[in-house]
């Protein structure tokens, strides 16, 4: 299986948009984390669909070391109402539509991991469409990519292929360095 993320580009702190079919997007998520973990990167997964506890199990099943991943979880608190952050493992935000909290969480996580080889993975742009207009999603991703570039951190945005309208797709393409369609 050819690698999805080019290690050279990752080291150059490039920002990626990874497209996958609805049926394979979870598998791509696991493969990417395995790839970049093998390169010594710690991945911060921003999850907007599965709670972090479920993702942890899926990653474990997929052979991903739990130490190589931490989470910003936008699902759990939305379901059970209250969940305490676990330092180094998970930060909870109230719901996926709260972009302000999400932005703050990203900033704080990046601060926590300053000086380390870190990569932010956003799973996924498509889920955000349930809660936000493409204009707001575009603004948020612009904010996050700017932040990543300022802090010299690489980032990966996952999206379901053909799910984004041409306008949003064009905007996202201009924010990222590389678009990989994994099919």
């Amino acid at each position, binding site marked *: 299986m050819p690698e999805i993320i080019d290690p050279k580009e990752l080291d150059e702190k490039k920002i990626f948009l990874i497209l996958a079919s609805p*049926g394979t997007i979870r598998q791509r998520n696991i493969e990417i984390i395995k790839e970049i973990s093998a390169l010594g990167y710690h991945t911060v997964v921003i999850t907007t669909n599965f709670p972090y506890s*479920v993702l942890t199990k*899926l990653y474990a099943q997929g052979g991903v070391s739990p130490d190589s991943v931490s989470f910003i979880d936008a699902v759990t608190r939305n379901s059970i109402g209250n969940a305490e952050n676990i330092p180094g493992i998970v930060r909870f935000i109230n719901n996926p539509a709260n972009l302000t909290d999400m932005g703050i969480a990203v900033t704080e996580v990046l601060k926590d991991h300053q000086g380390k080889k870190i990569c932010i993975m956003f799973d*996924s742009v498509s*889920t955000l469409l*349930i809660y936000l*207009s493409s204009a707001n999603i575009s603004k948020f991703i612009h904010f996050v990519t700017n932040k990543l570039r300022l802090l010299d951190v690489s980032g990966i945005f996952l999206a379901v292929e053909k*799910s984004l*309208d*041409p306008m949003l797709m064009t905007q996202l393409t201009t924010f990222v360095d590389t678009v990989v369609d994994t099919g």
Partner: protein
Amino acid sequence: MENTHNNQSCIEAGILDNALVMIAVLGERGQVVSWNHAAETITGYLQKDIIGSNSVWKHLYPDRDYRKSVTEKIADILKTKNYFEDLETTIRTRSGESRTILWNTKTITDHGLPRVITVGMDVTTDRQETAFRESIIDNAYVLLAVLGPKGTILVWNKAAEMITGYSNGEVIGKNDIWKKLYPDTEYRRSITLKIAKIISEHNYFENLETTIVTKNNEKRIISWNTRQTRTRGIYHEIAIGRDITEQRKAEEALIAYMTEMTMRLKQPVGIINNTLMESARLVKEGMLTTDEIIMVLQGQARNAAQIESNIREFQTAIVEKNLSIPEAYRKFLEG
């Protein structure tokens, strides 16, 4: 000889009396010498009441200031020549109506006496029709331009002024307005070619869309229709332009909105489906705790509720944005 002269006079009197225009013969001091039947019909003043008097003009022009202005105008004309042509005045008839009269005069000598033959044509109906036509042209909510030979602009209505920003005075009698409206040489050339091709095939064009640049440097989309008319052997082009800029913007906004909402409805349903299928597999494999199953199900239920809310928002927006939706469908969409 005498008989011949009498016959001639009778014929002249008959012509004078039955003419369809008002004819008044005036003496040296402006007194009425002759007043035909049409003059009686138009003014309401009878021959017997005014022959020999010059007071009829005061009756026809009762407003002192207006009478003065007409007198001054006539005096001005008579300074250089002893007749006048197509002088238009408005008279007040005996019954109080206003009539527009086009005057022409000629000075003659009759049996050694100086006479002025005054011919007045009642153009009231013509003027009313013209005013009505002009009012329609000016108040039309479409750009209306009439082009004469060599593309010279003959008519440029108020809507044309409003849409393009170019006033009547800047356009009438000239043919350079198109260069101003299409400042880009390439675009102008492409439009000219397109028009020439259509005209060569049909003599007119319908719903041709072009983008003009207004005097304020704004771009407006105009849908053009033309017709060719022929008046007294001269061909004129009537160009009617409808400003469809806002309509196009609305259409584009609607398409953008529908695309956005399609994306925001279709994709999430797929996401819910995949998440539930994946969760089912994990449950089967015994990987999820009861709390996790509840969390996943609640999460997807929330997603579904949000999608339902998005659909409602979509229905409302479509109804608001597209008023052409039939009533029955509108009610259905409004829920």
